[in-house]
């Protein structure tokens, strides 16, 4: 099913933001839409978007590859992305991530065996005064979690296990 058939209202809203002769501008919001359900963008979805915007599939692929929040492979249902950049690192982010790895029994870049969490180290998330912090990227969008401890993170993961992930 094409994106326009699946999400007619959203696609219409997105296209209305940009001048009709510059509809290529809609590629980024459309990619987020395509990624919503599975957490990654399929080749078919990229073809669909290219067709919708009159650009080549290569254009779309290059955009997916350029930006870090688009994914072309299935990973955990939630990506837990810990900021380890300089300001956070000065406030204990690296130790936090190391301890979190230990608790989850996975390394950075790996996914928990139940497929729920993929753990990533990412660049600055503009929350330097609230370190350690991370964002979760999942079916319900991107959320910030600030002033975190390993215990609080493990509680959050427990809650994500039981949530359907559809709730707003």
């Amino acid at each position, binding site marked *: 099913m094409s994106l326009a058939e699946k999400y007619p209202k959203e696609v219409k809203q997105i296209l209305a933001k940009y001048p009709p002769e510059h509809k290529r501008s809609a590629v980024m919001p459309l990619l987020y839409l395509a990624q919503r359900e599975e957490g990654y963008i399929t080749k078919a979805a990229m073809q669909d978007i290219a067709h919708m915007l009159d650009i080549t599939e290569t254009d779309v692929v290059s955009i997916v590859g350029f*930006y870090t*929040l688009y994914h072309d492979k299935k990973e955990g249902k939630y990506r837990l992305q810990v900021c380890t*950049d300089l300001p956070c690192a000065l406030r204990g982010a690296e130790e936090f991530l190391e301890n979190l790895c230990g608790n989850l029994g996975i390394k950075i870049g790996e996914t928990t065996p139940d497929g729920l969490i993929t753990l990533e180290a990412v660049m600055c998330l503009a929350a330097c005064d609230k370190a350690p912090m991370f964002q979760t990227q999942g079916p319900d969008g991107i959320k*910030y979690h600030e002033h975190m401890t390993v215990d609080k993170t493990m509680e959050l993961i427990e809650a994500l296990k039981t949530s359907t992930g559809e709730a707003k």
Partner: protein
Amino acid sequence: MTHVLLRHRDIPEINRLEVYQKNGGFEAFKNAVTKMKPSEVTEVVKNSGLRGRGGAGFPTGMKWAFIDNKNWPHYVVANADESEPGTFKDREIMESNPFQFLEGVAIASYAVGANAAYVYLRGEFWQVAAFLDEKIAEMENAGYLGKNLFGTDYSLKIHTHLGAGAYICGEETAMLESLEGKRGQPRVRPPFPPSYGLYGKPTIVNNVETLTNVPLILANGADWYKNMGTADSAGVKIFSLSGRVRKPGNYELPFGATFRELIYTHGGGVQDSRKVKAIMPAGASSSLILVDDEKVLDTPMDYASVRTLGADLGSASVIVVDDTVSMDWLINKTVHFFRHESCGKCTTCREGTYWMSHLTERIHEGRASRADVDLLLNVAKQMQGKCLCALGEFSTMAVVTGIERFRQDFDKAVKSNS
């Protein structure tokens, strides 16, 4: 002190439309549209001395006056990409005082004759964008956005647009490329956006904090604003304080407040009562200020004074580094950031950050010789002045000043027999 930008700290719930209205909200925009010519609005902003808060410090009114009136339509793009490590002020403004920011966008749009404005937010600000969408809808319903505003023939729409995780999109021409649905890679300049911007049309790109100043400048007058701050740096600034301080956070102060005031009076001093070793006043892009003398802390924080310390104030994201930190570790961090964020368009930055990262890693891991430190300095200096945009330049700042001002840290980190 009463805040100009972080007004939510004085006025609870100013992020609700009726509260914002009760406190004079949208009066400046209405007055501009119904009683002033666009050029008069620009003139007030010019006279206020307001300079861009994204880092470059370019005079805002002058930028608006550069808009090419022979080529239409015009656009305004608000830069809400906030990605400099150490900067977290724009998010607080958008979450807590959103209408003042949006009114600033609206006034800027009127001043340059734009009927459409985009707020480009970094992709991680997903929740902030959804919140702004609600606020924009409230403004439309209340008649502050849409067609024939206040009974005039002026119309304006504001849209949000989410990036998707790329620091380089904070560079204004990369942002415009991204908004056009392309990879966010900077354009060769000139031409600059006021003549060739979004879709090749005249465009003004301003930072969130810059725009948030505008409604109160119009309401209170240019002189009111100019009387705050210093001669070369008019007005107030939000200082994002992070690193090894007791109370990190955003502090709105007039330009000219000292580092000591920020770090000790507001930030509660250094953690564990350690000594300040270095300050990065402009985030990861910053030169490292050597604090070998307590007097350095008494330097006023304004564009000109910070320059006398061999650094730039930039976006005023003040990262405090104490004496437990070794600079070989620190520059390894910043260089890895820039290597990751280099867009790959120009060879100098793409290759330079790659090779610098190999050297900083080797030095930090104790596998390097003295010659490697000299080589790193050499590579960094060779990059300077040869990059397509500021990102490549910025990647060298902490490296060069780190090695030149803290050489002893590198001597300790290299193999002792080298």
